[in-house]
């Protein structure tokens, strides 16, 4: 029962979704739209589960005083502060349990949730990603060692795309006459992006798409069962 019923559910639901695409009439059409709504609701609970798991891990680290346990207190504090602000006074578009929090907004200029979002969350997120600009440089140093024809292609394409996307690229080849405009760096970059890059991406997309179709069939037919876990 612990394994067979979930397998049957997967098979029936998967088959229903596929059938509804070929027979978009009653009852399949309505059944599938209802199912999609269920999917959204359960997915929302899955996000809550992920959050519960984060809280559990943080609490256990604090309880057993694991390495760096003090920092996990900050995780919990920041989580609950942001959560309560959002639930009490809502977000930019939503009203919370205590309304829109006009009194607070008139003092700090924004709702508390949005204040934290704009002044902390957005900065942390943007800086975290911009940090990768430095690490990507060291990764490039290792990846771009021109030792074979393939790595030369990688290096050449990356340099041309980067130069073509910046003002220095336009400046370097801006003097070219009209008849040689196709050698203008921004044009070369656009050509690479439009044709060879699309060809490579398309091959990857088709390959991955076929793989996903195969995996979906394996899941629906119950051949692939790893999502059910161990025992």
């Amino acid at each position, binding site marked *: 029962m612990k394994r067979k019923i979930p397998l049957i559910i997967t098979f029936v639901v998967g088959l229903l*979704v596929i059938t509804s695409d070929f027979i978009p009439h009653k009852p399949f059409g309505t059944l599938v739209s*209802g199912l999609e709504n269920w999917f959204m609701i*359960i997915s929302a609970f899955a996000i809550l589960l992920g959050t519960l798991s984060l809280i559990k891990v943080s609490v256990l680290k604090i309880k057993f005083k694991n390495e760096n346990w003090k920092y996990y207190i900050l995780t919990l504090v920041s989580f609950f502060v942001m959560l309560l602000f959002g639930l009490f006074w809502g977000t930019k578009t939503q009203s919370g349990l205590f309304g829109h929090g006009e009194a607070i907004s008139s003092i700090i200029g924004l709702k508390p949730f949005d204040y934290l979002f704009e002044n902390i969350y957005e900065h942390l997120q943007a800086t*975290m990603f911009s940090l990768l*600009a430095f690490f990507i*440089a060291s990764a490039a140093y290792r990846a771009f060692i021109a030792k074979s024809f*393939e790595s030369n292609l990688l290096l*050449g394409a990356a340099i041309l795309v980067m130069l073509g996307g910046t003002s220095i690229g336009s400046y370097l080849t801006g003097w070219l006459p009209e008849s040689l405009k196709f050698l203008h760096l921004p044009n070369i970059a656009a050509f690479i992006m439009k044709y060879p890059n699309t060809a490579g991406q*398309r091959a990857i997309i088709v390959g991955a798409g076929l793989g996903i179709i195969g995996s979906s069939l394996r899941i629906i037919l119950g051949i692939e069962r790893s999502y059910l876990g161990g025992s």
Partner: protein
Amino acid sequence: MELFYSRLGVWIGVLFTFAIFSFLYKDNPFYKVAEQIFIGLSAAFWVVITIYDTLIPNLFKPLSENFGGNIILLIPAFLGVLMLIRIIPKLEWLSRFPIALLIGTTAGISFLRYLKSDVLNQLTATMLNPFAASDWISMIGEILLIVGTICGVLYFYFSKKHEGALGTSAKIGIYFLMVSFGAAFGYTVMGRISLLIGRLQFLMGDWLNLIAH
């Protein structure tokens, strides 16, 4: 008062920006503090958005407005609660039912979506007549596009050893993939650099008022 909180917000943003950048020197307590706060805020942000954008309009509101008419929504709500039970190790198996529903729906949707958009549509878009192109650059480009796509797909065919005609095609396929990876890398670098420029603009403009913003 509003101006004070606005300036305070900028200063908080600056402090966290420097705390994250301090990682460039080495892992340190400032970075760890900023990192953990980021994790906490991210989790809370997504919980709040999920509640307001998914659970309230699709579950709580229909049930509170017309309970009898929407009683069927109690099933996904019950399955959602079963999903949360996963956190209790002894009852973990109960979460397999909602997971089965999610996986079944995802597999069905993926099967159709990828068949249409990632296989059929991509192949249709590759079926071009390069000799009908408007200029010779587009003609060369379209020939490259057709050859590159076919050879690239052949590279991913692993059921036969890559030798002879298949080997040559696969080799050409690798060349196109390499150009594609290079272009993608170049684009990613530019994206990250533009984020870095955005951060510097914030520090120089919003904080120090050295540049117009």
